[in-house]
């Protein structure tokens, strides 16, 4: 083992291309993690498994950037919000919501939904109209809301599959030159007059609420045009936005990988060095224990532990540590055996320094480059093992890791149904994170062990 100062190592590291690549990837991942931590509060973790939160999202839709590569534009899933517009005319109070958007896709939207919460008293009239790019306006709905003699909050969702809407449209069927009876409501509304094909342009959905007594206020009002493309990463079978899951997965994966590797390297290092330094019977006993642990089949035991003890993410990190410090202890023992014969260690011993002081002051500092290399190299294994356990469905359900996204993908048969956007990104992220650490580790390793350079 050659002795190199930390400055030498730094300089050599900066010269190695893969080392720099590794650092760059890692920096990107850290930026993503910081962004994830800052942008999403910790409490939203719980919402990942809460279907109520994702109800307005589309089911298994492709990422929107797909539209950049294909000619037939897939309709995007859009959620519109509107400002309150109020007016008073001849003792009639009007509260109105307008949703204006440009529809430029080559396929009809799946459906649409209007979701609102209205504060009202008495029995106001709700009217829903769509104004199409060709100037025609279609009346979708006109109905009065249930009577109430005091101020109440009323929440309703109007779906395009509603029979009332269909009847209203069928009454206006002479707008169209073709039969509309069997068509989907969204297909009719977004179709040309002459034939059944998409009419592109500006659509305006107007929702008017008329009442005689008081001004009504919309507390919530959302128009959702259901498409087949959503977000940067698409959505899964449970309507969850995959971008959010992948974003949260990054700090978790880094946390799991780094804490497991640091923990196990420290434990293995101290264990190995102490055993090697002490020698004789202590060494023999400690190494036998190490051998036993080495011969335990790790993955089966991790599975048993996850099932019987707990699958909390922190305990999992502990379990992973138990099985990953063994190899490091072996290597650090043999390194300690070499270092302890050096003269300055002997000198320190003769001077009567305490064992702990010799180990921490004289032996371990000599091994630091090796320590950093092995920390970096053992990160990917920890990440893949955790991902593997999560993939088997044994992960912590309150934290969405990449492995869990893949587990869900597998249970819902994503491969069978061709949901590539559900399978590809988590695996790629696992691999890229692993690669970053492998690169850094390899670069450090070649510096510490020059023999491998050839």
């Amino acid at each position: 083992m050659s002795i190199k100062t930390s400055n030498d190592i730094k300089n050599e590291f900066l010269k190695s291309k893969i080392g720099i690549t590794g650092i760059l990837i890692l920096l990107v991942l850290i930026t993503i993690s910081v962004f994830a931590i800052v942008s999403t509060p910790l409490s939203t973790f719980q919402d990942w498994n809460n279907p109520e939160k994702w109800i307005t999202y589309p089911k298994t839709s492709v990422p929107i950037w797909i539209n950049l590569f294909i000619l037939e534009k897939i309709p995007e899933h859009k959620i519109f919000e509107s400002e309150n517009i109020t007016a008073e005319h001849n003792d009639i109070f009007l509260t109105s919501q307008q949703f204006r958007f440009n529809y430029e896709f080559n396929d009809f939207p799946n459906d649409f939904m209007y979701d609102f919460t209205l504060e009202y008293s008495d029995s106001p009239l709700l009217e829903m109209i769509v104004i199409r790019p060709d100037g025609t306006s279609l009346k979708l709905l006109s109905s009065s809301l249930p009577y109430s003699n005091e101020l109440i909050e009323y929440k309703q969702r109007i779906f395009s599959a509603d029979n009332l809407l269909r009847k209203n449209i069928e009454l206006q069927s002479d707008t169209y030159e073709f039969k509309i009876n069997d068509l989907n409501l969204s297909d009719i509304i977004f179709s040309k007059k002459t034939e059944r094909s998409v009419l592109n342009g500006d659509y305006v959905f107007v929702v008017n609420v008329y009442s005689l007594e008081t001004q009504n206020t919309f507390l919530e009002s959302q128009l959702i045009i259901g498409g087949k493309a959503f977000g940067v990463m698409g959505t899964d079978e449970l309507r969850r936005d995959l971008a959010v899951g992948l974003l949260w997965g990054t700090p978790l994966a880094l946390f799991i990988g780094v804490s497991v590797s640091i923990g196990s390297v420290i434990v293995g290092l101290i264990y190995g060095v102490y055993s090697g330094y002490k020698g004789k019977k202590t060494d023999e006993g400690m190494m036998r224990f190490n051998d036993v642990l080495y011969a335990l089949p790790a993955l089966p035991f991790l599975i048993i532990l996850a099932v019987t003890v707990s699958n909390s993410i922190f305990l999992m990190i502990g379990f992973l540590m138990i099985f990953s410090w063994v190899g490091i202890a072996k290597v650090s023992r043999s390194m300690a055996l070499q270092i302890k014969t050096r003269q300055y260690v002997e000198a320190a011993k003769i001077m009567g320094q305490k064992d702990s002081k010799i180990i921490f002051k004289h032996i371990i500092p000599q091994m630091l480059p090796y320590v950093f290399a092995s920390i970096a190299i053992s990160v990917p294994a920890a990440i893949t093992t955790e991902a593997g356990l999560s993939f088997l469905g044994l992960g912590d359900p309150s934290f969405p890791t990449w492995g869990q996204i893949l587990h869900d993908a597998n249970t819902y048969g994503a491969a069978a149904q061709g949901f590539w956007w559900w399978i590809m990104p988590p695996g790629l992220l696992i691999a890229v994170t692993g690669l970053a650490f492998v690169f850094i580790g390899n670069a450090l390793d070649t510096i510490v062990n020059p023999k491998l350079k050839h």
Partner: protein
Amino acid sequence: MFSVLMITLLLTVLLVGSNMDTILKQGVMFQVRAEIIENPSIANSFSNPDEFEAFIKQKIDERVKTLGLDNPWYSPQRIGLTMYKILILDFGNAAFLTSDSGSSNVGDILLEKIPRTILLFTSATIIISIIGIFLGAASSNKIGSKTDRITSTFAIVSSSFPVWWIGMLMIFLFAFVYQIFPARATPTIDSSEPGYIFSLLYHMTLPLITISLIGFGSWAYLVRNFMVNVLQEDYITAKKIMGIDKKKIIYKHALKNAAPPIITILALSLSGSLGGAIITEAVFDWPGMGRLYFDAISVMDLPVIIGSTYILTVLFLISIFVADLLYGYFDPRMRRGS
């Protein structure tokens, strides 16, 4: 080595014992209750429900006692008994799982699953090592060449992908986009039919390709590194000076001398892949040991868990032992040293 096996099993028993105990006791309660209620004459002979309940409770206690469940699961007698039974290879009967032929004897189940796992993973290891050794030798021939660089890059990149994820992609590509291979690796026809072997081999192709694809890169890289070390030795230089063909040196002399570490790693990776089989088999639904193990843990079938852990550990230890022996055979220095 034997003590390692026993410690492994003891740990397994300790970990799953308490859960198993609760499940067993509940099972007994259901059984006894069902037996009594099925027989109306017993129920009719009691005048009030309290008395009837007391009778059932008494019967349950009796049954628990005869089964030896009244001692806590951690009592030395019960653990001792379990360990003794394991020693004489009597794994007992599975609580929930059965073999394909319907037997619930753990030995039968294991005997049915082991060959399949060995078939898949041994053939994968053989393919990986053949490709890996030749590719590694070829790239050590010309260090820094295109082959060498591609091999090294592929090795690093492929080793950071999880095998099961590549498996999912392969299923997506070759079972659904291009319908070449079946998505589920469990053969569809019964094991007694004549075409079963072919069906099994056909279903095995996709997992085999996946495991090999991920494995051979890092193998080639390892072989290359060992070869590089050997090629720096004096006797190789001497042979070069003598004018012996470089290919002959590499494949005949250098490879032979790099063999010991390669073989050790071969044996270790074989046993390591058996542990990893749990996830791989889950993805491909390959009906082997890994799948059995996972099924057993999800329903807490203690006898099967113990049996599988036993087999996995034994296989692991055997391969370490064989690796040691082979090392000594190929490297005479080791023999003299020990």
